[in-house]
Structures are given as structure tokens and as C-alpha cells.
């Protein structure tokens, strides 16, 4: 049953040419705090969309709604053309398998080594995978982010930048079709930030992933974005390419680019 569904959806993903992710009138409140009021968003296949917005505007909540960590109050969410609210649990799980989530804090498992951190999603999501396959995937993932040496260390022994890269490796190891990055470069020095931004770009090119990148780092936006969306007071206040928004009439939008 489960494998059947997976096959269907995966084949649909391959056929997909239009938008991979669509949000229509998405709303989310916490008590009286109306965080997302009316979000409309389209992500096309192979596209990197950067989301800008001041701290606390609900950027993290937005992408948590996509993976089901937060439940939207209202509105529609289509992933690979499927209305999420119409899917049963097994189908939801299969769809979410295709989405990678990089947490703002990394969310590395402290009690596990670097290697076990990477093995965890593999073992949990690809049940019939052999030990050798796991090892070669782990090796490859670490090489992609330049962390080969750290395989037997624990997360507490890593620097901030290494932790970010490990978080990235753990998310990428399942080769997701949609990547959600929550502030991938925050707290890093400009050089490491640039490396991470380039890595994001490399991932997009290598695996043809579609991504949402939340960031306050305007250099990261410049490197990675095909399109930028600015969120203000719970709605998408502006949308355009980097150069379009940079020259915007609106001083508030321009202020992000200074």
C-alpha cells in the first residue's frame, strides 16, 4: 500500500513541470497574534525563492506549515499539485519525504555522533537500505559539505559553521525535491556565509531542487535567489528579482538591501 502510493507520487514529481508548491490565502494565528494573515506563494520547479522579513514576522512559521510542524488555520497548500488537506496520512508522509528542512538552530542530535546524525534520517525513511549503502551516502553527504574529517565527532565538538554544514548535510542526504532553509547563514562569518550560499546554489544545480530560503543575510540572497519575496504584517508585501527590489520605489523595501 505504502510503496504503491510512493511510486505514484514520485512518478508525479518526475512529470511535474509547473509549480511544485502553491500557497493560497494561508492563515496562521497563535491566540491573538495573527502571524500569517494571507500568504499567497508559488514556487516553481528548480527555483530558489528567498524570503525576507523582519524578525518575528512569521517566516519560520511559514515553512513549518509546509512540513506540518505547524498547522495552518485556513487556506490551501498544494505540494506537487496535490491539495495537502485531501491526502491521507500515508500519502502525507510520502510527500513530506521529498521535503528537506534545515532548522534555524541546526537541530543536531546532541547524543549522536556526526555519522549517526546522518544515518538517522536514512534509517528512518529508507527502511530497506543496506549498511554499505548507508555508509557511502554518509561519506558522500559529508564530502559535499566538506566535513569528511569530522565523521566520528559529536556535534558539541564542532564549530558553529561546521554545525550548520552538518545540518545541511543531514537535510540533503535524502536528496529532497524541495528544500526549506531557515536562516542558513545566520551567525557565521562572511566567508563561511558565502561558502554556505554557494553550497545552496550547488545543490540547486546538482539535484534541480526547488527551495525556499529564509535569510537576513542580503549577500546570501544575492547569491542564491532567483526571486525574492518580502513578508510584512502577515502578507507578501513585495515580490521580484534581486535587482528589481533593490531599485524599488518603496524605501522600506530598499532598507533590506542596504
Amino acid at each position, binding site marked *: 500500500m*505504502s510503496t504503491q502510493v510512493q511510486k505514484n507520487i514520485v512518478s508525479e514529481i518526475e512529470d511535474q513541470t509547473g509549480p511544485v508548491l502553491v500557497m493560497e490565502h494561508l492563515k496562521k494565528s*497563535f*491566540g491573538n497574534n495573527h502571524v500569517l494573515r494571507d500568504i499567497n506563494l508559488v514556487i516553481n520547479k528548480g527555483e530558489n525563492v528567498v524570503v525576507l522579513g523582519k524578525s518575528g514576522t512569521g517566516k519560520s512559521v511559514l515553512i*513549518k506549515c509546509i*512540513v*506540518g*510542524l505547524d*498547522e495552518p488555520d485556513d487556506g490551501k497548500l498544494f505540494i506537487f499539485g496535490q491539495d495537502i488537506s485531501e491526502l491521507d*496520512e*500515508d500519502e*502525507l*508522509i510520502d510527500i*513530506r*519525504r521529498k*521535503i528537506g*528542512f534545515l*532548522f*534555524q*538552530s*541546526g*537541530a*543536531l*542530535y*546532541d*547524543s549522536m555522533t556526526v555519522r549517526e546524525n546522518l544515518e*538517522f*534520517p536514512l534509517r*528512518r*525513511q529508507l527502511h530497506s537500505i543496506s549498511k554499505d549503502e548507508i555508509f557511502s551516502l554518509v561519506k558522500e553527504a559529508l564530502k559535499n559539505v566538506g566535513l569528511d574529517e569530522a565523521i566520528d565527532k559529536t556535534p558539541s565538538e564542532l564549530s558553529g559553521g561546521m554545525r550548520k554544514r552538518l545540518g545541511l548535510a543531514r537535510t540533503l542526504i535524502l536528496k529532497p525535491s524541495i528544500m526549506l532553509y531557515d536562516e542558513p547563514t545566520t551567525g557565521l562569518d562572511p566567508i563561511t556565509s558565502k561558502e554556505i550560499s554557494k553550497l545552496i546554489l550547488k545543490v540547486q544545480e546538482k539535484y534541480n531542487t526547488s527551495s525556499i530560503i529564509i535569510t537576513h543575510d542580503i549577500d546570501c540572497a544575492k547569491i542564491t535567489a532567483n526571486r525574492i519575496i518580502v513578508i510584512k504584517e502577515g502578507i507578501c508585501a513585495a515580490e521580484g528579482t534581486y535587482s528589481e527590489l533593490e531599485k524599488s520605489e518603496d524605501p522600506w523595501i530598499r532598507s533590506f538591501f542596504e
Partner: protein
Amino acid sequence: MKKITLPKLQNENLDEEIVKDSVFKKFFLEVYSLTIFTLHFFREVFKPPYEFNELMKQTFLIGYKSFPLVIITGFIIGLVLTIQSRPTLANFGAESWLPAMVAVSIIREIGPVITSLIFAGKVGSGIGAELASMNVTQQIDAMQVSDTNPFKYLVVTRVVAATFMLPVLVVFADMVGLLGSFVGVNLKGDVSLHLFFAQIFQSLDFNDLFPAFIKTFFFGFAIGLIGSYKGYYSNKGTEGVGKAANSSVVFASLMVFIIDMIAVQITSLYQN
């Protein structure tokens, strides 16, 4: 099949209300959400898939971590209890009852309760702190997006492990406690090991052993559950970790006494 969306208590909203409310209301809110948590545990525990590897790992860790402490305190309690009881019994000329009396108090009451309190301090706070820090750093969320039911993987395994490990630890503590008592008896007397245990077994019966053993499962369950509950629903913030560890111990220890009281009431119904 695995569940991705779990009922999350909206604790952040709840907490603000709690601060304004009376201690009384706070207490009942706590009991209410703990009850929901417990019900959720029973819904998840029998439902496959079972996290067998993680359960084994937790059982080992929980036993391994508290074993030395339990053994040392068990021995000392047995020894001290014997030394302290001797003068009173000697006053009545009943010194020969010493092994029997100490054995009954260790096995019925002191072994299980002291071991549980140590277990609450060591394991309950450990679970509380561990889950709280996983919560703060979004590790629990990360598991959820990795196709893993964090409640099953983290909570169910720890609660089951605590439930079955504590009775084992209590048996060890009782045995070492009796050994300590044997040493205590021989500080000022001369009783052979053979005679010592012969006296003990003469005075012990099924009514001493069985209820005392059964109640330790409940102690273990309560400690594991409360630690998990406090950790799983801790406040997002580093101060939440310390708070979770601390309140796990306080709440779990209190619970041990409450369960003990109920257990004693129930067993006394059946005896005479």
C-alpha cells in the same frame, strides 16, 4: 503507520494564563495535562511500529547509570538501620529479632522507596533535562520531519525502560541492604550468614514480598512518565531545561510517596 502530526499542548499560551491564576488552578491544570499525556502514552505504547532498539538502549542506560548509586545507598541503609535499631530492641531484650525486623522494613518499605527516590533524582531529572534540551534545540521537531514519531521514539521507550528497570534495581538494593544489615548485626554480635538468612526467611512471607515488588513498577512508571512530561512540554528556552529537570525530581518524588500510600492502603485491605 507512523503519525507525523502529534497533538502538541499549546503550552506557551497556557503558561501565560497559569501565571495569573491561583496555585490551586495551576495544580489542576497540571494534573489535567499530565492525564492527557498519560492517555496518549497508552495509545502509543501498544501501537506498532515498536522502537525496540531504542528501548533496549534506554533500558541499558537507565540501569547502568543508577546501579552504583543504588548499590551503595542500599548497603548503607541496611547497615545504619541495623545499628540504629539495636538499642531499642535490646531494651526489650529482643535483640535476636534484629535481622527479621530490619529485613521486613527494608523489603516492604525502605528498599523500594529509597531506591525510587534516588531513581527519581538520577533518572527522572535526566529524562526531564534531556527531553527539554531536545525540545529547545528543535531536535524533537527534526525527528518529526524525519518520519519519526518523537513521542514513541523518546517518551514511550524511556517510560517503559524506567518501569521495568526500577524493580530490578530495587531487588538489587534489597539484597545489598540485607548484606549491610548482616554486617551491622555482626558489629556487636556474632551471627553466621546462614543463621542470619534463616531468621529472615522465617519472618518474611509472600505478603511482604509480592506487594512490595509490584508497587515498584508503578514507581518506575510514574518517574519515567513525569520526567518525560516535564521535558517534552518544557518552555522553549534554556532556563526551561533546568526547570524541567528540577520539577521532574520534585513531582516524581512526591508521586512515589502518594503511590506508596495508596499501595499500603490496598495491601492492608488484604492482610487480616
